């Protein structure tokens, strides 16, 4: 717990614009994350934050939001029961409903994966990523985080081709995820794929990239960010 609070504080001080807290093991186990920590994070943070993992019902979403989260991110449960998106959007407003999509390129086609928190249970949902992106928007999603799995963890840069394709059909904010390794990768994804935000974990956790320095780099390349 101390680690989470320390990290939250560090990223806030470095100038992160938003934080996402993932419990990627929550969904495959069929359990919910222990929500008490959200309250402590909310007490500390004065920037928006999103909670992802194991939110399967509007009631669970309400608990998370009442603890002080600004947004909830849904991945596997939305694939299992897409009407959940409509219910969340109607009850809490589209602005706090984020849909996380894990997309894998298979035979030159982008496909949505589910249960990605557990290698043994992970599977191709059979859905084309573009179809799912259209569907979640029509159901009331307020934001999409597209995690490009072929790039995830390899730090070779964001998947510009896929993000560009999805950007073209996304009328709501699109956040790039997967592949960040250098400051230049962020410049590339904002310039070329025109995404609304870029998410990264490893390079920030390991302090390979400092968020403050990254923002200076982006500003130097005429990309508008909050300094």
């Amino acid at each position, binding site marked *: 717990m101390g680690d989470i609070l320390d990290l939250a504080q560090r990223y806030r001080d470095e100038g992160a614009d938003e934080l996402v807290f993932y419990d990627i093991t929550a969904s495959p186990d069929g359990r919910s994350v222990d929500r008490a920590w959200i309250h402590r994070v909310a007490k500390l943070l*004065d920037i928006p934050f999103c909670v992802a993992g194991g939110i399967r019902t509007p009631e669970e979403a309400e608990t998370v939001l009442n603890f002080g989260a600004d947004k909830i991110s849904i991945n596997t449960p939305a694939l299992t029961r897409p009407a959940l998106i409509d219910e969340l959007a109607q009850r809490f407003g589209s*602005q706090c409903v984020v849909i996380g999509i894990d997309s894998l390129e298979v035979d030159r086609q982008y496909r949505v994966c589910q249960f990605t928190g557990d290698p043994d249970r992970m599977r191709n949902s059979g859905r084309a990523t573009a179809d799912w992106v259209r569907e979640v928007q029509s159901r009331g999603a307020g*934001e999409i985080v597209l995690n490009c799995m072929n790039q995830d963890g390899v730090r070779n840069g964001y998947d510009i081709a896929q993000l560009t394709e999805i950007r073209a059909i996304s009328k*709501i*904010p699109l956040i790039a995820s997967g592949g960040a390794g250098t400051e230049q990768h962020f410049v590339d994804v904002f310039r070329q794929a025109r995404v609304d935000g870029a998410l990264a974990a490893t390079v920030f956790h390991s302090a390979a990239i400092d968020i403050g320095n990254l923002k200076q780099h982006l500003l130097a390349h005429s990309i508008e960010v909050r300094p």
Partner: protein
Amino acid sequence: MTGQVALIDSGGANIASLQFALARLGHDGILTRDAGFITGARHVILPGVGAASTAMERLADRGLDTVIAELTQPVLAICLGLQLLFDSSGENDTRCLGIMEGHVRALEPSAERPVPHMGWNRVNQVRESKLLRGIQNGAYFYFVHSYAADIGASTTASADYGRTFSAIAEQGNFFATQFHPEKSGTAGQQLLKNFLATG
């Protein structure tokens, strides 16, 4: 300076973040619909999330619409709260509190600018502002909204999102922000501090 701040309960609003932000500044934010408590508080905040019509009905239900208009201590209205201070809102054609002159209209979505307007945006000072003291002009604040008040006599700072709208409005003891200062990092904290230093 520490003390209690009355947070007017207009329904639907998640005010945990706001209470935490006030706590970081040494203040206790008390959620209330009690007219006596609101009138007696040193500072009053009108938060709000949801539809203008629902919030106005809920305020009127307890006679709080009249109470708010007659407050003489510093009042800060946030997000939907700002919209409620104006004459009327295009959201379900709602008559609002009429404390500030002007009309609230829907933001027009476009390919480049989805609605709700959600995220960090620059706030530009247009005239003397007590809330912006010590804050750099053009600082970023965090917005989440689908409606916005036009620029008017009470506007002290503006923001752009498809059109230019009132980001901050100030008139006498009434202060209002369309953005969420409690979610706007250091700049937001300074703004709240400025508000609590008034009166």
